[in-house]
């Protein structure tokens, strides 16, 4: 099975992935989407007003094959919640 590498960045915190074997590019895409969604569950609840999650997926040759980005912003309107 081919290896894929899922590098991630949350704010300024970067992780270079050491690789996961998956059946094909479709499986890599599903894994990337699921992981980004799970990271949102972990990181967004503690985000005060904004958060930014980015993922780059590389194939075994090091070629970038996918880019995922999630921008999150919370704005108070009218000041009632302050």
């Amino acid at each position, binding site marked *: 099975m081919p290896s894929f590498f*899922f590098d991630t960045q949350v704010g300024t915190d970067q*992780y270079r*992935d*050491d690789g*996961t074997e998956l059946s094909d590019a479709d499986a890599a895409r599903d*894994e990337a989407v*699921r*992981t980004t969604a*799970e990271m949102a569950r*972990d990181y967004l609840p503690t985000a005060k007003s904004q958060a930014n999650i980015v993922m780059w997926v590389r194939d075994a040759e090091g070629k970038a094959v996918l880019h995922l980005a999630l921008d999150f912003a919370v704005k108070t309107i009218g000041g009632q919640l302050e």
Partner: protein
Amino acid sequence: MTSDKRDALDRLFRRMEVRDTLAEAERDALIGAAGEIRDLPARTRISSKGEELSHSTLLVTGITARTVYMEAGDRQITSFHIAGDFVDLHAFPLKIMDHNVEAITACKVIHFPHDGLRHITEQFPHLTRVLWLLTLLDSAIHRQWLSVMGQMQVVEHLAHLLCEQFTRAKAVGLADGDAFRFPVTQEDLADSMGRSIVHVNRSLQSLRRQGLIQWQGGEVKILDWPALQELAEFDPTYLHLEKLPR
């Protein structure tokens, strides 16, 4: 050979002796109820959902998992078992399995025919309570997993799982100092946490980066137990490690 069986039951006896004292007659009764030692290759299905069992299985060496499969094929691991654990003692009164048990690694197991266990429940009330305790420990661990899965972020969840596995291994003499064998795959780990493989790998890297653990060749080494325990909010009360009359 009775002496082989006595050795094979050693981890079970330790697991029980951590929590209570066994009489020699109770040990003999368990040895008498034990079948032959069997070798199973890794990834063997030990029992399946819907199956009616006439024996329960004690794990002598290796790691097994209880598994539940969703219709789409996704797998949830609901527990890991190590040497000295009955993988399905609850099957004695339940009879029909509501989940599967799978060998994660190559395993040695012993079958305990339910007729023999029934004899124990009729002749050895204290030993019966200790066996009951073992099934209650399974449910205490399930409660903890459920709470951790519902409430914790993934890094803390992974830290908790490692604290639990280390504490359980240590209690039956399976830890080597600060290290213990935990040869599960990335996929096993992810399926036990209900998270993606990549997300769990990322968390593992975070624990390594923080200098809390090493994980190489199926062996986990705890580098900073107080910090790992604090991160995981690990409180071993639910493992009931006190020696008390049951």
